[in-house]
């Protein structure tokens, strides 16, 4: 405790700074500048602390165990609350801190028109503090408290613009199902505490694998359903669409980029650490099946959407499906691919939501049927949006492709090793979902940014620099993580994947060496050598070099032939030479976008779409019913399997 600046304290600093910021922002009261300074300082400080932790945790492989209030475990029982930071939690922490930082920069200019913005910042900082707390905590009940904080902050923020259409209703739905999830987590924690009489994560993961009995299995099901509501996986995905649709853009970035990751983090911790049951084929099947279903269902739902933000919301769930499928494979390559895709998802999804926010602020609507041709009025936003769209649909130089490429390799390798054909279908569904993602983003770019500019948006101006700067950070990160695949996997995802397989070290670093082998005896997790071999090669830099040389060559050839200068003169303009060809008619503004794209695909799948349309009724009780039914099924499944 002597040296307050040693890196062991940084986990606590990164959480407390945010909660302190939340408090100070209220004190700042009326003065906008002071409030912005507090918010930005809190967020940057927390990010800085986590970045400083990379060296010890990621590179040296050390696991920081931090006992709040210096209450060391006495007599073999961990009484105090512990923070445990291993590579996996630091990876998620970094991800969340970057998203929070960029979203905070964005919301400074984005919220300038709203009133009572100080409440916004308090909730914002509470939300980010809760999520980072959830990711870094080593104590199950502490995780539950952080889940509560972030859920209520998210619900309040969804309804922040309560006059917006459907904001209150969305917040209410989110509240109802969110609380069902939280109560499940609470119930699970209580049952585990009743069995193990401890709440410390390391001790639990040492105790539980030994003695599975019905109550621990039911606790497992409860915790699993609780965390999957937080991650909006399939039975709970319509919730996400409403929440994102209504929330302000900077909050949608947090909900889709950060909250879903906290759900995934919870599930990984649960299945790999607490119950260490992923070795069972049945458990892998559960995760991979739910992942593939949510991949396909959400992307087809996204194709049918008419609203920009709802479409993005459904996409974030389908990308979470990718992450879940990859992490459910229980192979080193699978987890590394899953985590890599989770990181990329936060980056490009954040960028897309910020672009949606920019469009909403300038035109006042995000309805795909009304917008069009904004690229002429908002060129920078268009470029940034395109980078995000290309990344999410997995176009080679961008980061989406690098992680999807690893996901396909992982699923197909797993299919080959385990010989069961289910994983093969997961690969096929993953590849088809990627094309459908590309289709829906072509739809968005055609109906919002290209095509013809409708009358009422003639004088739309570009968004202020603050918002473009925030989007710029995400865009640069998207490109960098896409190009330097080896660096990212070597320094970030592989240490995290090794940490997932190295439960013994996790327990020993928390409760002293040799504890794991003492308690668990026979099935103590032995440290296995983790291998990341690829079945193919992909060097983005080499490829980009080729592309640039050829681009240069072709532009040279085109310019050599004096790419004929475009002749523009008044007489030709009057004649209609530069109007769009309408079969001779005077060019009437007619925008092809929104609903009338991809008729061929929708026509062939019309029965599927009508069934999905009826299923997503939008009524709260249906979603609550789904949640309960999912809980019952999960319990049944776990009881049979474990």
């Amino acid at each position: 405790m002597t040296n307050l600046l040693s890196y062991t304290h940084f986990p606590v600093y990164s959480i407390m700074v945010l909660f302190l910021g939340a408090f100070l922002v209220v004190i700042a009261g009326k003065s906008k500048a002071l409030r912005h300074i507090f918010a930005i300082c809190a967020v940057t400080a927390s990010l800085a602390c986590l970045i400083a932790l990379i060296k010890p945790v990621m590179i040296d492989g050390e696991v920081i165990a931090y006992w709040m209030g210096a209450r060391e475990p006495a007599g073999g029982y961990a009484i105090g609350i512990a923070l445990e930071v291993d590579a996996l939690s630091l990876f998620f922490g970094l991800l969340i801190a970057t998203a929070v930082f960029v979203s905070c920069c964005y919301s400074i200019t984005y919220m300038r028109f709203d009133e009572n913005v100080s409440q916004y910042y308090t909730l914002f900082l509470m939300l980010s503090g809760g999520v980072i707390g959830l990711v870094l905590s080593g104590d199950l009940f502490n995780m539950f408290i952080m889940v509560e904080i972030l859920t209520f902050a998210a619900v309040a923020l969804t309804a922040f613009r309560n006059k917006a259409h459907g904001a209150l209703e969305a917040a209410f739905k989110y509240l109802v199902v969110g609380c069902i999830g939280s109560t499940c987590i609470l119930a699970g924690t209580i049952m585990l505490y009743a069995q193990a009489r401890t709440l410390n994560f390391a001790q639990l993961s040492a105790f539980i694998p030994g003695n599975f009995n019905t109550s621990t299995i039911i606790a497992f099901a409860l915790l699993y359903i609780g965390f999957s509501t937080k991650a909006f996986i399939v039975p709970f995905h319509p919730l996400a669409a409403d929440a994102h649709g209504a929330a302000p853009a900077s909050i949608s970035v947090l909900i889709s980029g950060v909250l879903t990751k906290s759900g995934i983090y919870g599930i990984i911790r649960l299945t790999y650490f607490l119950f260490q049951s992923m070795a069972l084929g049945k458990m892998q099947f559960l995760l991979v099946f739910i992942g593939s279903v949510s991949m396909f269902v959400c992307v087809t739902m996204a194709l049918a959407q008419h609203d920009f933000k709802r479409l993005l919301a459904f996409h974030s769930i389908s990308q979470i499906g990718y992450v879940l499928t990859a992490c459910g494979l229980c192979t080193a390559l699978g987890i590394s691919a899953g985590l890599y895709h989770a990181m990329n998802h936060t980056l490009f999804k954040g960028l897309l939501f910020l672009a949606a926010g920019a469009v909403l602020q300038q035109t006042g609507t995000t309805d795909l049927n009304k917008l069009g041709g904004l690229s002429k009025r908002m060129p920078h936003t268009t470029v940034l949006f395109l980078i995000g769209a290309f990344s999410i649909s997995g176009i080679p130089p961008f980061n989406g492709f690098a992680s999807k490429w690893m996901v396909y390799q992982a699923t197909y390798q797993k299919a080959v090793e385990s010989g069961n054909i289910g994983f093969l279908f997961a690969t096929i569904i993953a590849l088809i979902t990627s094309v459908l993602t590309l289709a829906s983003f072509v739809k968005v770019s055609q109906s919002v940014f290209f095509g013809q500019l409708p009358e009422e948006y003639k004088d739309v101006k570009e968004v202020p620099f603050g918002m473009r700067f925030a989007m710029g950070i995400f865009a640069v990160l998207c490109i960098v993580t896409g190009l330097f695949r080896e660096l990212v996997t070597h320094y970030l995802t592989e240490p995290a994947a090794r940490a997932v397989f190295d439960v013994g070290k996790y327990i020993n670093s928390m409760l002293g060496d040799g504890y794991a082998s003492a308690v668990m005896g026979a099935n103590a997790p032995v440290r296995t050598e983790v291998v990341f071999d690829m079945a193919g090669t992909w060097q983005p830099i080499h490829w980009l070099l080729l592309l640039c040389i050829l681009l240069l060559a072709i532009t040279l050839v085109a310019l050599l032939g004096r790419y004929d200068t475009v002749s523009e003169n008044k007489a030709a303009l009057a004649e209609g030479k530069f109007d769009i060809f309408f079969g001779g008619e005077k060019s009437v503004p007619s925008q092809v976008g929104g609903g009338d794209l991809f008729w061929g695909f929708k026509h062939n799948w019309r029965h599927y779409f009508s069934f999905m349309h009826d299923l997503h009724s939008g009524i709260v009780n249906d979603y609550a019913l789904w949640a309960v039914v999912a809980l019952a099924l999960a319990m049944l499944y776990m009881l049979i399997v474990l």
Partner: protein
Amino acid sequence: MFKNLITESTAKSPWLFHINSGSCNGCDIELVAVLTPRYDAERFGFKLAGSPRHADIVVVSGPLTQQSLPRTLRAISQVPEPRCIVTIGSCPQSGNVFKGSYSVMAPLSKYVHVDVAVAGCTPKPEAIMDGLVQATEILKEKRKAWLEAKKNGLKDGPKAETEQEVPAAEDVPASGEEVQQ
């Protein structure tokens, strides 16, 4: 070094854009007959293009009715330089038997400089093919003229393109009296 290659290939791959401004379709089926196996204009690279932007030769048939005149002229103006305009049959040349009717705005040469006129009330496909081959020769001269025009600053081709003011369909006088020959 590409210059004469490009000029040569301008003549070797002329793409047609067909505008039917009220024709009785006699000339239209003859024009399409030119592309059938028996006459096969594709030997010379002729191809029907879908949009005026892809066209080199604009083929106009029909007596330019009052409704179709402004649309025809707009479509012709949307064809990139160097272009040339071919009329098939007597209708675009003079309005044929429909001359003097209130709704016939022929001849086309009143509004646009017509390069080749293929006469015949439904000219034979061979005649159309001769006319089109003639047009490809003119296309080469036009390309040279267009390059000169561009070189010495004239933004768009010679102004003589449209002799008369274009009477848009809306403000054409109800009774076609004084427009008549």
